[in-house]
């Protein structure tokens, strides 16, 4: 026993030492690349794990911590981030910070045609860059490693062959291109040597180029000045705008408070469809759950009957829809439902004449019907399986007692089977409701929210809130309207949270039933 304890302690210490070393290394690495915000994470993480393993009081936490960690990373962080985005203007043209937008705009250059290029030679060693010498038509330029022009007199030059390109400067020999790139590229690429109206910078592997910036930033006015036209673009709330209204891309991200929520209320194109989508969303989730549960339960009761022959065979066959990946079966159903060449219409036509064509996916009512039908097919095996399990948990004596009391099959079902079943199955139904409320996959694969209700409205007849939000996020006005989609995300989250909350309170009442037994 004592050895075991000692071994365990040693192992623990070894593990924690490695962990600590790893955390310090990680933090140091982050510090080296300048990511200061990252540093606390490995340090706090390692400290937290050490506390969990060493403190006896934290013993129960050891088992909860991994779950809690992933809860935070996979659930809480995205929720918080989504809420945060809904208070910003994050969308196409507004994804950078203001500093980055200014940096991008002021680093734009006016291309000179033909390009002005000056060959250069660098002098130094692989560890030290002494000077860069540019040959220009106006003479030789000496550029220090810090990007300043220096007087040629300051250098001692040896140019034995007299071609204007020194062999040695201050005793340093010229570097070949390969060595220069490997050793000094990172520093030299940053250099902008002020020159005439613009700057000189590294343009190719062997040349500097002369460039004129397109915009200059004037911090006093918080404005950009176009160097070709003199036009001034003043910083607006989220982008630079000239007096005539012309705006520059990119703009920047900013906090807009409740503006997106107000936009949702004010702009008809967002809320016009909301009521319709929401109503269908509820109908879709409720009918999917109720009908697939009804079918699953009916089949479970049938299969639960010991007098039924080939029970195992039926059960295996009935589970098949559950075993086929939904991605495949939904696409197959979609093919069946095709109005012109689909299986259903072909069969109907051969029975009832060729004029009959049900617009399975092309008409709002039929599209909703087809979707619910397909979803029942996909989910009833799950409902059947959980019902089978729950049925077997109901004690047989209850039925015997009921039979003696003279209860018929229907009474037995409504008074015994169903209430007792709901105790264990109601939470699953609530889960299934939440899942179907956000069942983006089947909607997207089957109809992509179609058919059309109103041309140009992003919500089709079968769009649920989530697919509507997806369309807003990725097919918005100028590409992506992440912030408006996030508003929808928050609304969906609130709705599902409220419905689930109410439902769980009500299922407590069901538990009373079993306690009464």
């Amino acid at each position, binding site marked *: 026993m004592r050895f075991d304890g000692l071994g365990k302690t040693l192992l623990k210490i070894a593990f924690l030492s490695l962990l600590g070393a790893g955390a310090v290394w990680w933090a140091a*690495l982050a510090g080296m690349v300048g990511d200061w*915000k*990252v540093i606390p*994470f490995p340090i706090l993480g390692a400290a937290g794990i050490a506390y969990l393993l060493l403190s006896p009081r934290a013993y129960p936490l050891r088992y909860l911590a991994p779950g809690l960690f992933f809860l935070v990373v996979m659930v809480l*962080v995205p929720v918080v981030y989504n809420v*945060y985005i809904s208070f910003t203007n994050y969308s*196409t*043209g507004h*994804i*950078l*910070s203001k500093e*980055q*937008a200014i940096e*991008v*705009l002021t*680093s734009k*250059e006016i*291309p000179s*045609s033909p*390009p002005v290029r000056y060959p250069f030679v660098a002098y130094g060693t692989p560890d030290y860059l002494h000077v860069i010498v540019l040959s220009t038509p106006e003479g030789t330029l000496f550029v220090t490693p810090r990007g300043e022009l220096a007087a040629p007199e300051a250098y001692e030059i040896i140019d034995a062959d007299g071609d204007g390109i020194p062999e040695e400067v201050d005793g340093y020999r010229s570097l070949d291109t*390969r060595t220069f*790139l*490997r050793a000094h*590229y*990172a520093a030299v*690429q*940053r250099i902008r040597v002020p020159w005439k109206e613009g700057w000189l910078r590294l*343009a*190719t*592997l062997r040349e500097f180029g002369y460039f004129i910036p397109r915009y200059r930033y004037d911090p006093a006015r918080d404005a950009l000045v176009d160097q070709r036209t003199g036009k001034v673009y003043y910083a607006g709330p989220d982008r630079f705008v000239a007096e005539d209204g012309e705006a520059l*891309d*990119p703009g920047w*991200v900013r906090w807009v408070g409740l503006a997106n929520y107000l936009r949702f209320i004010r702009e008809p*194109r967002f809320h016009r469809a909301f009521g319709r989508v929401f109503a269908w969303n509820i109908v879709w989730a409720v009918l999917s759950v109720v009908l697939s549960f009804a079918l699953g339960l009916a089949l479970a009761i049938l299969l639960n009957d010991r007098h039924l022959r080939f029970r195992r065979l039926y059960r295996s066959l009935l589970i098949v829809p559950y075993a086929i990946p939904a991605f495949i079966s939904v696409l197959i159903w*979609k*093919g069946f439902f*095709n*109005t*012109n*060449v689909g299986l259903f219409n072909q069969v109907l*036509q051969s029975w009832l004449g*060729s004029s009959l064509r049900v*617009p399975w*996916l*092309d008409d709002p009512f039929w599209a909703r019907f087809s979707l619910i039908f397909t979803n029942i097919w996909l989910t009833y095996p799950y409902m059947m399986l959980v019902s089978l399990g729950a049925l077997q948990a109901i004690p047989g004596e209850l039925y015997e007692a009921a039979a003696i009391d003279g209860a018929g099959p229907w009474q037995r079902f409504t008074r015994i089977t169903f209430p007792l079943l709901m105790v264990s199955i109601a939470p699953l139904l609530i889960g299934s409701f939440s899942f179907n409320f956000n069942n983006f996959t089947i909607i997207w694969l089957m109809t992509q929210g*179609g*058919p*059309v209700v109103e*041309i*140009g*409205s*992003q919500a*089709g007849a079968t769009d649920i809130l989530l697919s509507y939000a997806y*369309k807003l996020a*990725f*097919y*918005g*006005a*100028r*590409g992506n309207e992440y912030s408006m989609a996030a508003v929808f995300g928050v609304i969906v989250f609130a709705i599902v949270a409220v419905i689930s909350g109410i439902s769980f309170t009500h299922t407590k009442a069901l538990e009373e039933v079993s306690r009464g037994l």
Partner: protein
Amino acid sequence: MRRLMLAVALLVLGALAFAAEPGKILIWADDTRAPVFEALGKAYTEATGIPVEVVEVGFNEIRGQFTTAAPAGEGPDIIIGAHDWVGELAANGLLAELVLPEELKAKFDAVALQAFTYGALYGLPYAREGVALVYNKALLPEVPATFEELIEFARQFTDPTVPQYGFAVQNPDPYHEFPFLSAFGGYIFGVDEEGKLNPCDIGLDSPGAIEGAEYLDALFEEGILAAGMGWDIWTGLFAEGRIAAVITGPWAIGIAKGAGIDVGVAPIPPMKGHTPKPFVGVQGVMVSAFSPNLPLVEDFLYNYFATKEAQLKMYERDPRIPAFIPAYEEVADDPILRGFAESIANGVPMPNIPEMASVWGAWSDAMAAIGNQELEPASALKQAADAIREVLGCK
């Protein structure tokens, strides 16, 4: 906040090594193109000593991940992508402008370069593609000289009860139906005096677009075209030899050939004497505005990527029509490739401005309503154009 979130996400994924750093070229390419860049990168490293790293990213992931990663300084130097990403990425400030040497510019297909232009050149094209008339030679030995003759043939051949169709077009699908609209002068965005696309000049309800849609509508009404003919359905029928001719792109050739169909490719015949103009899509490479390696990247792209040998390697790996003319000339004797090339020679680049994102949905709705005979073309297109004007705030 966002930077912090991204840092956390990247640390969790251990992806720190994938960030651009000075002195090393980092490329994001999909699994089809990555091997070519790896080979080119190796050659470049041998010649210059500059390391080139290629990270495989799914084609559909590249745009989104680049949008998140580039501003945080975690993105690559070069991405592979499609020209219709250019407007959005450039509006977001993520792309570097490229200045092509004049002698190199002349070697690229002009439409392909135009496709990557959004105020300035933001990418180097390598392949172009678009739709043409793809036909089953066993059912339609020769492409008629006019579209009206093709309709006449389809009238005889089509029988939905078999089913067999003389002519098909994927629908509702604005991309494939656009040649009908463009033939009669329809357009998406008009061009302003500087040659830039004007997002408030929406041509979906222009007289030409309506005339084209009416021409198409008549085919649906007569039953020559089947409404709701999606990709899965028509490719299945075509592979069974039940469709004689279809408007589609190079991406369908593999399926047809795999089914043993002898396919021919030709430009879409003129409709009432007007030439249909399909959308041209262009694939190419773009450079991050946050790349510290612009001089290296330009050197790599202009001297190692924009060469006949490199472009032929790209073609072998991904057989689309090369945008680099010397490479195109080398492979132009392939009849299928030539058929598509001749078709898109009439074409227009698909608009690359970010406002295009708001066009697809409304336009697709209108085309569905036309195909289903729910609305007359004029009113369907008018509604779509008005909805787009509302979203874009155009009066």
